[in-house]
């Protein structure tokens, strides 16, 4: 009888102490614009295009899951408003003309700023 009263109270106090114990652990907040996470080289961010290496084979266009993100005509066009950053195009580029960068802060006020056009030689 008394045990059934005391046990819950013990558990409640254990809960309080667990929370308190966590309070004295190291803080995990990362204050974003000032401090940024260190990214690995694998990180799939914005894609960099090297026009000297491109041979216009259009494989990047073919493997892209978000259709219409990459278009190659007179220019190399990539639309980051549609891109899902899977880096398939980078992986299957036969000449290494596309590389991934660590840049991920792409937010803008204007959607058109997300479309990148670069000439092909």
């Amino acid at each position, binding site marked *: 009888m008394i045990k059934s009263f005391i046990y819950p109270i013990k558990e*409640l106090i254990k*809960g*309080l102490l*667990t*929370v*308190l114990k*966590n*309070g004295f*652990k*190291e*803080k*995990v*907040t990362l*204050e974003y614009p000032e401090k940024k996470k260190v990214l690995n080289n694998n990180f799939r961010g914005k894609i960099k295009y090297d026009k000297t290496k491109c041979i216009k084979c259009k494989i990047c266009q073919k493997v892209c899951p978000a259709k219409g993100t990459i278009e190659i005509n007179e220019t190399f066009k990539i639309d980051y408003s549609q891109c899902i950053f899977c880096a398939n195009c980078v992986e299957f580029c036969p000449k290494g003309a596309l590389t991934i960068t660590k840049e991920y802060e792409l937010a803008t006020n204007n959607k058109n700023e997300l479309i990148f056009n670069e000439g092909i030689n």
Partner: protein
Amino acid sequence: MSIFHLIFVEYLLKLNIPEWLIFMLWQIIYFIFISLLMILAVLFLVLFERKYLAFFTRRKGPNRVGLYGCLQTVADGIKILFKENIMPKNADKFIYFVAPIIVFAPILTVYSLIPFSSDINSYKSDIGILLFMAILSLPIAGVLFAGYSSRNKYSLIGGMRSCIQAISSEIPIFLTLAGIVILTGSMNLSEIVKAQHSFSQWNIFPSILGFIIFFICSLITLNRIPFDFPEAESELVAGYNSEYSGMKFAMFFLGEYALTFIFSAYAATLFLGGYNSPFGFYIADLFDLTLITGEIIRNIEQFFWLILKTFFLILIIMWIRAAYPRFKTEKALELCWYIFIPLAIFNLFVLCIVQYFRGSL
């Protein structure tokens, strides 16, 4: 007559100001003091709760606005004042409009009942204990009005829940209050405080059970987290205030924190010796000061002790918030009716015996 009142009257009488005007001015000054106290307490509490919860959850909390985020609540308050006031189309307009006022006004009123120090106490009522609880049963009506008039089912459920829990939590509270009245022989809050002049005389020692019951039941009255059914975010979205925005929402919000503060102060007054110093002496007594300066310093000290005790209780309330999930409505009611009421009656019985032996000593 408090020392502050005496100084004030003496000074103004020298300027040939009629007595009735002095009386009114004094009331106005006191009102400003109480409002300021409440607003400061609320502004601080909101920020403090955020920082404190952040401490428990290993975050840094708000730290952008002002030094260490000290202006965060001010910024939030200004923002909320400029928010659009949206009223649901089908709302019962008059009741919808009145509800936040009914919630807010009584809370402001009870600030005048608490003796913050031996001289800072605007209304020394002989039935202070009863009046406090009686006035504080009004906000429940406001919450119910808000729930009903919003014409929103979530709000309605929230309002109804608030009503049920108020009924069931107030009975144990009143039973513990009866214990206090037995111990001190008075319903006047300042008399109760005076009776607890030394540490060993604090009401909490004979009435520890009463204090625990009072504390948990006040959590129910305050809608704090293990018992926050009327707004139960994950069930009822925001409960009774889901249709309120802008200033009207702010009144509910401020009211909640102001109530937390004043209820803790009330508990400190009743059980923890009120403004009395736990050491039995004041710094003002140690020095050879003139009567007036000594009185003023002593009052400030007493005020400090009460605030300290209040914050000690608030710390516990917020600590509980960080640790526990929400109760179920009917379980909380069971807790009140089946456990707390019998325990409170038992507590009353114990206190009667204690008082009998105290009297004979």
